[in-house]
């Protein structure tokens, strides 16, 4: 319990720090501190409204407090380009990003961990000689390039999957759930999720394999053999279970770097998620939207990090039990 609370407190601290950096970043950048929230593209009424809501004529530290308060209430300002509240725009993009991210992660890590563990038992075989360099290559390749190749082969050449978007044009659904669970959506999800998965699986695969190889030399594994336990039990129940720990740690450390990659995958496949929204917002100098998208992406990351921390605590009793 204490462990979970500590990790939560830590996450909240990090969230606060990120939010503050965001505040400074967007105020310092466009030059005119008002420009972060107000623009001629908005109506006069809206401009005055935002001015009041965000206290843009107040001193900076007051603006900061107001900013935090607004953030807690979900008020992220008004998008210059779309002239709607930023939160409304983000709301529809968020589920798409979450689904893509989680699907990709789950596939990548289940595949990577199982294959890595299996590969550790296949020392010196052809499988090892082929799979290890292949995994390294996926780690060295630009994520969007992998997407481009998949797109060319499976969408353009074979025509098995659509080439972009999350839903076919003209489709109508009774509710969000229906839309997400529809066959159409899933078909659109396959290639981007696969791209993300292909890109992400290299780390768990290689790390699981190398950790397993080390652990298989550890004393407690030798003891397990002396006890006469079955090879299955030794490899999975003891070795793999211990090998998971560094994989989980590495995952947490790499989240920021690897999941930011959502942005490029969403671009390749025109997937309507937060990443694509961010790119569009930056291109259009739509500061409030860019800020909002960035914030939400950070939030997702921090929450994922917290979940991973808790999972690690559950997996490693040395951390959660004094």
């Amino acid at each position: 319990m204490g462990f979970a609370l500590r990790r939560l407190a830590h996450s909240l601290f990090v969230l606060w720090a990120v939010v503050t950096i965001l505040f400074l970043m967007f105020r310092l950048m466009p030059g005119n501190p008002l420009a972060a929230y107000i623009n001629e593209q908005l109506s006069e009424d809206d401009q005055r409204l935002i001015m009041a809501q965000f206290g843009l004529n107040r001193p900076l530290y007051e603006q900061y407090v107001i900013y935090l308060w607004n953030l807690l209430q979900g008020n992220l300002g008004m998008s210059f380009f779309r002239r709607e509240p930023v939160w409304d725009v983000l709301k529809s993009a968020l589920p798409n990003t979450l689904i893509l991210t989680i699907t990709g992660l789950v596939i990548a890590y289940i595949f990577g961990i199982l294959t890595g563990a299996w590969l550790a038992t296949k020392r010196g075989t052809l499988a090892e000689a082929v799979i290890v360099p292949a995994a390294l290559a996926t780690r060295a390749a630009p994520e969007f390039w992998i997407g481009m190749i998949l797109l060319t082969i499976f969408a353009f050449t074979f025509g098995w999957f659509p080439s972009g978007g999350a839903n076919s044009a003209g489709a109508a659904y009774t509710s969000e759930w229906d839309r997400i669970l529809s066959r159409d959506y899933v078909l659109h999800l396959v290639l981007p999720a696969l791209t993300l998965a292909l890109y992400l699986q290299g780390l768990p695969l290689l790390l699981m394999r190398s950790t397993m190889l080390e652990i298989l030399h550890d004393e407690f594994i030798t003891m397990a053999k002396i006890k006469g336990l079955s090879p299955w039990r030794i490899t999975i129940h003891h070795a793999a279970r211990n090998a998971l720990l560094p994989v989980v740690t590495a995952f947490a450390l790499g989240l920021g770097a690897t999941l930011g990659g959502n942005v490029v995958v969403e671009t390749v496949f025109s997937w309507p998620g937060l990443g694509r929204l961010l790119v569009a917002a930056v291109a259009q100098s739509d500061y409030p939207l860019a800020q909002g998208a960035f914030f939400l992406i950070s939030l997702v990351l921090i929450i994922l990090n917290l979940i991973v921390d808790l999972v690690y605590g559950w997996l490693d009793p040395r951390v959660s039990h004094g």
Partner: protein
Amino acid sequence: MEPPVLDVRNLSIEYRTSRGIVRAVDGVSFSVPKGAIVGLVGESGCGKTTVARSITGVLHQSARIAGGELVFKGKDLVAAPEKEWLEKRWRDISFIPQSAMNSLDPVYRIGAQLEEVLVHRGGRTRAEARSRSSELFDMVGLNPARLDEYPHQFSGGMRQRVAIALALALDPGLVIADEPVTALDVIVQRQILDVIRDLQRKLSLSMILVTHDISVVAYVSDKVVVMYAGRVVETGSTADVLERPRHPYMMGLTNAFPDLDTAAHDLVPIDGSPPDLASPPSGCRFAPRCPFLLPRCETDDPASAALGEGRSVACHRAPEADDLRARAKESATWLPA
């Protein structure tokens, strides 16, 4: 006389190394009487741990048994198919490792690890395993309430007790302890050895205790087997071997404390070091360091000669042992030539 629990006959074990094949164990023979603790003693690299591990059937990847027999309760394990050895693991032959910390899985509770052997190797039900675990903890002097804790929450001495409990879980016929107290500090060493000795007496366990520390052997074992450079150089009852050693090597070592009960005297180190087993010498392996060297010692490898009542020694000058022993007590004998 009951037949011995284990009869090691002419055992040889080879390692594949970058320098070629090394015979770490070369024609080792000794027996373990039923209900006795046999101390297997020797310095690092003499092959004692290799012998111990070979009895469990789990050797290092690069090692293999090159010859000889391991006759356990009348059946040779070396000649038997692997399946039979697997059957016996832990049920008949168990093992207490040197460092329990590294030999316990850090992510599972101690109780779970005890239950694991009881259920998966002992065929007990969960409930039976649970009660047997408590029983085992009591036996080794641990509080059964701590069964739900993790290895890192135990101290070194307690973890060794856990290792002992694990080894005794399935009532094995033979327990092999590999340097069970080496990693502990002196006071705890005594406690653990007491636990081992008491349990052995209560349960009439047959044990092999591997160590490089003669005082440990003196404290608990009934019989001693002394190894040097992959060979057995002397065997016998503990009292006899330590009070009346017949091999120069043993004489040199017991020189350090001629009396079992007094504190350690100045160590008179035996000059030199053991031979490189990648290219073993042709004569007696102890020849380069032996103060009683004869010319034939360098060409003829002495075979182990039985002297009756479980006593044996491998030395050309064994008949003169009493004289040699007297000379060995003078430190001048051991000064390098």
